[in-house]
């Protein structure tokens, strides 16, 4: 019996020839990640171990991105806990404001996560790095603490579902639409405990930015990880970034999948996920009655350069609807700078948008754009749970950057070809 990429990565890091789905294995980790919300909890647990060093100063990454620049005193204390820890233990990859970005945009950009890696992060969207052909999964703070101390974690080897995308990609369709469509198809627990492997002719032509968007939302289907085999597009992306060797794995032809699902993308429309679950999907043409108060473009799902490029192309020379608040959040300082140099930021500001420093901000209802009771937002983020962006009686609709930009212009959910 062959193995999937996910099995191969776990087997290698467990020091085994073969691992089977369902098996419990103890693995060595390449990267352990935490942020300003989860790391302080992990640090408190780490302290209980009473040890005076971490397993590897180069393999821990700490990113203050959720409530930073610090939104209040308590958040400032949490950031300080993490900063002090980073200094005390000599953590090499601690990113202060100014070099900080949203973690899942930042780590790939900095070449800190590479194909074949085994990565845990105390953040559920750690699965984003699967786009590079790595096995990356979200864990809690206690796992992070244990990981920082021992460099190891236990895993249950997941079963895999293969998703094959074929057909001609219509104009305006993006990775976001493919993943929303998939979640709508299998449901928010359709891949619970499982590995989601994205393949097919559409994926092999998809840009890295779009691949990150897809792997990012594997967790929204309950997946343990999302994974895309590394290829030339991946190599181009990591060439200038990688500072250490990496391994490219392919799934064996006789690898075991619990299910294979195929999607013809040629007739797909941009997808909207209605409140309050990412599985409540509708084609954009069924959603155009929904009027909005706020539009958010950014986050670890869609805060990359290509996302801003599409949004800017639609907003160029246009104005944001007078009843809409449009917030744009570049994912990292580098993305911000690139967008600035290419004139996107000017386009956004001239259109009447607010452009923010990289932060998670409104994505999790943290700060910088919270919704009042009864308000509706369309966001390029990944979750539309009750209260996710503010008041429990507010609503979040999820969509691609193209739909978001078009909707900001019209003041209601709008297909990109309408503007």
């Amino acid at each position: 019996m062959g193995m999937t990429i996910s099995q191969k990565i776990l087997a290698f890091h467990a020091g085994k020839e073969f691992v089977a789905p369902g098996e419990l294995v103890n693995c060595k980790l390449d990267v352990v990640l935490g942020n300003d919300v989860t790391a302080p909890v992990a640090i408190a647990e780490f302290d209980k171990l009473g040890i005076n060093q971490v397993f590897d100063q180069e393999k821990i990454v700490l990113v203050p991105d959720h409530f930073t620049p610090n939104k209040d005193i308590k958040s400032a204390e949490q950031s300080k806990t993490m900063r002090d820890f980073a200094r005390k233990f000599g953590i090499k990859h601690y990113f202060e404001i100014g070099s900080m970005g949203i973690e899942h945009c930042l780590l790939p950009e900095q070449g800190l996560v590479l194909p074949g890696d085994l990565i845990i992060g105390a953040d559920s969207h750690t699965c984003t790095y699967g786009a590079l052909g790595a096995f990356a999964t979200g864990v809690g703070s206690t796992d992070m603490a244990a990981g920082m101390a021992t460099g190891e974690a236990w895993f249950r080897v997941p079963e895999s579902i293969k998703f094959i995308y074929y057909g001609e990609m219509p104009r305006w369709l993006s990775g976001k639409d493919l993943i929303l469509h998939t979640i709508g198809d299998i449901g928010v627990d359709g891949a619970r405990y499982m590995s989601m492997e994205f393949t097919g002719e559409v994926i092999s032509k998809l840009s890295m930015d779009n691949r990150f968007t897809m792997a990012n939302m594997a967790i929204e289907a309950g997946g343990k990880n999302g994974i895309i085999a590394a290829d030339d597009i991946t190599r181009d992306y990591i060439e200038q970034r990688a500072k250490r060797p990496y391994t490219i794995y392919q799934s064996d032809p006789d690898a075991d999948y619990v299910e294979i699902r195929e999607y013809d993308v040629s007739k797909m429309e941009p997808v909207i996920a209605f409140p309050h679950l990412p599985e409540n999907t509708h084609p954009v043409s069924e959603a155009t009655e929904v009027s909005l108060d706020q539009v958010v473009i950014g986050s670890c799902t869609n805060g990359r350069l290509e996302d801003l490029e599409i949004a800017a192309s639609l907003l160029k020379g246009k104005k944001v609807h007078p009843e809409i608040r449009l917030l744009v959040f570049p994912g990292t300082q580098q993305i911000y700078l690139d967008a600035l140099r290419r004139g996107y930021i000017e386009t956004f500001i001239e259109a009447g948008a607010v452009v923010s420093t990289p932060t998670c901000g409104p994505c999790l209802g943290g700060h910088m754009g919270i919704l009042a009771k009864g308000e509706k937002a369309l966001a390029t983020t990944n979750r539309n749970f009750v209260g996710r962006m503010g008041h429990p009686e507010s609503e979040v609709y999820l969509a691609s950057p193209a739909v978001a930009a078009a909707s900001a212009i019209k003041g209601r959910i709008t297909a990109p070809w309408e503007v």
Partner: protein
Amino acid sequence: MKFTGKVHKFGADIDTDVIIPARYLNTFDPAELAKHCLEDADPEFPTKVQAGDIIVADKNFGCGSSREHAPIAIKGAGIACVIARSFARIFYRNAINTGLPILECDTAIDAINSGDEVEVDLDLGQVRNLRTGEVYEATPFPSFMQEIMAKGGLINYIKDK
């Protein structure tokens, strides 16, 4: 481990944003978090919940973010055990790692109502409804996880190693 307590019943896909909204994540003090536990699903829950109570929920409990604040808030509210049709995987892992007893039990979910008294036996993997006398069999934990829980969570487990 055995618990007896009053049931608070919830539906499917109770996510971690509902268990503890991000607006309260600027602390991880269990008592502070408990004040807002599940308030977006049931605004009265934080005031009516009592020590030793039990949560019964449908599928995919704890989906969403990896915040360990979710099991911390539930434990802080005094909940003795969560029984669900299924758990989202990060929550499942976090519950074991932090020592919040959980049980996956398909048959119990439909038969148990809010307000019922139930008795949970974690070792046997059994749930008994004291109102009806019915007993439901649950899936027991793999021995590896039982070992972690028996040590009182992952940190103690590692300490012993």
